[in-house]
Structure formats: C-alpha cells, structure tokens
C-alpha cells in the first residue's frame, strides 16, 4: 500500500537515510588505522529496489569501497573533503525527496477532504 502511495520517493528516502549512516561511519572512522571508506551507489541501489529487491539486499549490492585520491600510510582511505561533500549532497537530496513526499501527501489529503 505505502509503495503505491509514495512510489519511488519512499524507496529513495530509505536509501538516502542509509547512505547518511554509511557516510557518517566514514567520518567517524577518520582516524581508524586500516579503515576502508564505503559509499552507496544511489542510482544502482534505487534501480535494484525498483526492480523488486528488498531494502537491505539492494543497498548491500550497491555498496562500494571508495577509491582514495591519495592513500595514507596507515591504510585508512577516508578523505575528509570527499566525505563532507558527499554528506552535504546527500542531505540536500534527502530534503528534496522529503519535499516530493510532502507534495504527494498534500495532494492525497486534498483529495480526501474534497477541497
């Protein structure tokens, strides 16, 4: 029911929220030796989700390790500039998706009220 109600935006919001967690993990592990930064390929995850995959599976299949611009000596591949940019971009996209959802709900509410 909710899939039909929110369409692609419901799935997009779930992936955006999960990506926020993954990017947050990268920022948290900026000083952990040997930590490999990860990111979710949003387009691939959404495609898998819309193709009928479950939430966790499609996100896991679209999670990739980041290729560092300049690897550090302790094996850590977190680059603060990259992570912060990705985090900001993801936050903006999350807000945009929220806006789409809000519009959808507003449309439905109006239809129900008969305004």
């Amino acid at each position, binding site marked *: 029911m909710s899939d039909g109600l929110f369409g692609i935006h419901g799935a997009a919001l779930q992936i955006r929220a999960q990506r926020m*967690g*993954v990017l*947050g*993990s990268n*920022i948290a592990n900026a000083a952990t030796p040997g930590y490999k930064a990860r990111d979710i390929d949003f387009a691939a995850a959404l495609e898998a989700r819309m193709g009928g995959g479950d939430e966790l599976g499609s996100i896991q299949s679209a999670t990739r390790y980041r290729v560092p611009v300049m690897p550090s000596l302790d094996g850590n591949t977190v680059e603060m500039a990259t992570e912060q940019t990705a985090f900001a971009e993801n936050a903006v996209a999350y807000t945009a998706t*929220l806006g789409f959802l809000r519009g959808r709900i507003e449309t439905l509410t109006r239809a129900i009220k008969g305004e």
Partner: protein
Amino acid sequence: MPGQMTMFELGQRAMSAQLVRMNAAASNLANAGSVAASEDQAYRPLRPVFAEHLDAANGISTVRVQGVQRADVAPVRRHEPGHPLADENGDVWVSPVDENAEMVEMLEASRQYQNMIEAMSTAKHLMLETMRMK
C-alpha cells in the same frame, strides 16, 4: 528494532574515542620534560589505538578504543649531577614527549570531533523534518 545502531550512537562513540585521544595528548603534554631517577620509571607517551566496530545488521560502523598503549620510545638521558633524582652517575631520565607532535594530535582530534558534531546535527535536523511531515 532493538540494538540497531543509530546515527546518534555512531556519533557518540566516535566523539568519546576522540575525547580519549585528546585526553591522552593532554597527559603527554602535561608530562613533557618530567624527569625520573631511572630509565624504567621515566614517563612514556600514551597512545590510544582505534579499531572499527561494524554493526552488521545495517552496515554502519563506528569507532572503538581498543586500548591505550605506551609508546615505545627511549627516554632521554641528561647529565645533571645537582638534581635530587640523579643516579650514581649523575644522570636523570627525561620523558621523550614531542610537544609539536602532541599539539598536532590534539588539533586533529578536535577537528574530527567538530566534524562528527556537524554531521550529527545535520542528521538530527533531517530526522526532525521527517518527523514533522504531515
């Protein structure tokens, strides 16, 4: 779901880890230049060791402080016969703290702490927006 790691728990653990790092650097700075009567008694710098802590249920990972270790650096021997702690040769052992390295360590820890707060407040803001949606 109980036990699943949230963005807040992630941030909280990462911030405590950075705090441990900052405390270690502060201890090292406080003991810079302190002297001891023998090589064994001399202060050696503290170093926290971080490790990744993965929550396999949702693919989020945070930081764990694996332990705080003593750096393996030899204390500096200084000839100071008038010192009350001097041994029979007239030597004292000075702690091998590199003040510049500790200051850099402290700066980096505080920057990463700030970063985590920034990320957490953005996440909180987005969560509240989602909650208020109607």
